């Protein structure tokens, strides 16, 4: 069976509200997007949706070892096993709870599917004026073979609060798994949020991750996306600035090989004046891997004095790797500063020779230069554990035993 048939038979066996039924009917009518669809022009879903998935099944019980093996070691953890929320931390000023449905109107197929059928996820409410020093780690484990899971998460951050998250989606087997992930963050006034996504799943894992962020005035939100694993990754990262003096920052590092594909779609909607956005995506492509970057920046008419910066730099380290990069700027205000840049290149031969002349082997020299290339984005991550992990995973991916942390 294909995913759409899996979804049909699953939805026939459950009861959903009439609104959701409508969403489902329209979804089954139009089906999944194809490369004719502008938003999916460079990323084909064909293979992904032709596979057979099991939906709504629970696998074996998660062991403590599974958790510690994949954790970055933070004390405060939210843990999911095959969709079920199995543990939440206790922190003063924060309420953690299970899935609770929330509205989200969208034209996006995967979000509609998520709205119609997702019944797992978390809800986090951070009280106003709560400053959380500890990092909150969110782990989603997949235990069932060939599973399709949908999470729908909401984080509501009260005014003047500060908080940091690290998220990991982890398939515990080598079988295929597909997660359609959706997280909404509501940033209150004068909040500061950092959310780190470590996308280092097993070889046959697929992910579609949509994150919608709504920012009120004086808020800062930083999203860091690190892609090392998984066969298929699509990130839709959308910021909506609904107050003045907002700051939206994005850092992305993708290091891909074999037949991996990673597609980063970002969108910043500048609706109010005196806001900034800063976007830095670095991609390194080996083997037959493929990257896609689509960065859209919208500056609405009333959004004067906007400072928007976007860069997408790519290294193609093999003959057969590709990158499609597309900056998209729509500016309707007249007093703004917007800049964007995109580069695609190879490693600098002179630098390689320089390093080799210092006794550094060619594989190591390439790795050091690749790290140097990606480090600008990695350095922007404020959590040391995440930074160190990124360095470690980069070295592993490039097959070298080097420590970049000095």
């Amino acid at each position: 069976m294909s995913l759409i048939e899996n979804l049909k038979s699953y939805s026939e066996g459950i009861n959903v509200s009439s609104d959701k039924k409508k969403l489902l009917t329209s979804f089954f009518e139009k089906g999944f997007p194809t490369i004719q669809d502008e938003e999916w022009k460079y990323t084909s879903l064909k293979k992904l949706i032709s596979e057979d998935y099991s939906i709504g099944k629970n696998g074996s019980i998660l062991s403590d070892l599974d958790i510690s093996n994949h954790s970055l070691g933070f004390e405060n953890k939210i843990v999911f096993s095959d969709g079920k929320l199995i543990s939440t931390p206790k922190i003063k000023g924060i309420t953690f709870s299970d899935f609770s449905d929330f509205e989200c109107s969208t034209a996006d197929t995967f979000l509609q599917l998520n709205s119609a059928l997702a019944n797992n996820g978390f809800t986090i409410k951070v009280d106003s004026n709560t400053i959380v020093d500890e990092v909150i780690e969110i782990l989603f484990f997949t235990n069932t073979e060939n599973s399709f899971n949908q999470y729908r998460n909401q984080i509501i951050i009260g005014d003047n609060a500060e908080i940091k998250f690290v998220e990991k989606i982890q398939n515990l087997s080598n079988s295929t798994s597909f997660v359609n992930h959706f997280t909404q963050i509501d940033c209150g006034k004068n909040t500061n949020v950092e959310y780190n996504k470590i996308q280092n799943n097993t070889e046959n894992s697929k992910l579609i991750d949509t994150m919608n962020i709504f920012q009120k005035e004086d808020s800062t939100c930083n999203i860091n996306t690190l892609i090392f694993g998984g066969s298929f990754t699509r990130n839709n990262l959308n910021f909506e600035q609904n107050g003045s003096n907002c700051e939206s920052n994005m850092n992305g590092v993708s290091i891909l090989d074999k037949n991996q594909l990673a597609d980063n779609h970002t969108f910043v909607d500048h609706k109010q004046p005196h806001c900034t956005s800063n976007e830095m995506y670095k991609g390194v492509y080996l083997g037959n891997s493929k990257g896609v970057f689509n960065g859209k920046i919208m500056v609405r008419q009333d959004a004067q004095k906007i400072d928007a910066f976007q860069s997408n730099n790519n290294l193609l380290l093999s003959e057969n790797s590709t990158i499609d990069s597309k900056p998209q700027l729509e500016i309707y205000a007249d007093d703004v500063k917007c800049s964007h840049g995109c580069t695609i290149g190879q490693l600098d031969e002179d630098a390689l020779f320089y390093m080799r002349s210092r006794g550094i082997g060619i594989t190591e020299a390439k790795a050091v230069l690749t790290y140097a290339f990606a480090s600008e984005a990695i350095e922007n991550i404020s959590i040391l554990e995440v930074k160190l992990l990124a360095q470690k995973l980069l070295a592993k991916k490039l097959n070298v035993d080097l420590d970049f942390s000095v």
Partner: protein
Amino acid sequence: MLKIKDLKAGIEDNQILNEINLEVNAGEVHAIMGPNGSGKSTLAAVIAGKDEYEVVGGSIDFEGEDLLELSPEERAHKGVFLSFQYPVEIPGISVSNFIKTSITELRKATGMKPIPTKDLLKMMRDKMKLLNIKNGYLSRNMNEGFSGGEKKRNEIFQMAMLDPKLSILDETDSGLDIDALRIVANGVNKLKSKNNATIVITHYQRLLDYIIPDFVHVLYDGKIIKSGGKELAHELDERGYDWITKEANKK
């Protein structure tokens, strides 16, 4: 230590070195001088193993081994060091990280145990003193935004850290003011021993006031046309290259 015999090399179809012969022994300092375009930097690059240069004839023997058969990193492992005329900027890698990687890889290749980071940092600080390098330097990105003098000092700093057998200083004096020149030369002199050798490539005699050569060679049109003692450098400084090139052309 180093024996260059009838070396011919060039880039694509353009032959730059025409039968270079040079022998350098441990404990010696050789200066190679010559006008622009005579092949000085090509010689340095060929010894270090830059692969855009093609060796079409002759041999380079380094301590009994055929150097031309080795990759640039293997040459470094054997103890060959090139101080670059134009050191490369590497944004994103700190000086300390670069040197640590270099030393770790060198030691790995030669079967030595890695040095603990703490000891390595101490070693770096000691060598920094030798070259009057200020604090804060180790965390700067490799050569990024360095002045000409800082870049050259960084080259000699690496030389001090790697402790090579044969150092080739390619125009290390260019871009240095007199104070920096003195510091760099002083560093080179302090690193000199009876077990290592130095080849100083330079345009001007000025550097040779500080690093006293045992031998001076004049390179012209890809050939060593005259060799002599340190007094040859003075003579060149006074009379220029013309008289030697004329002499060579007559032959």
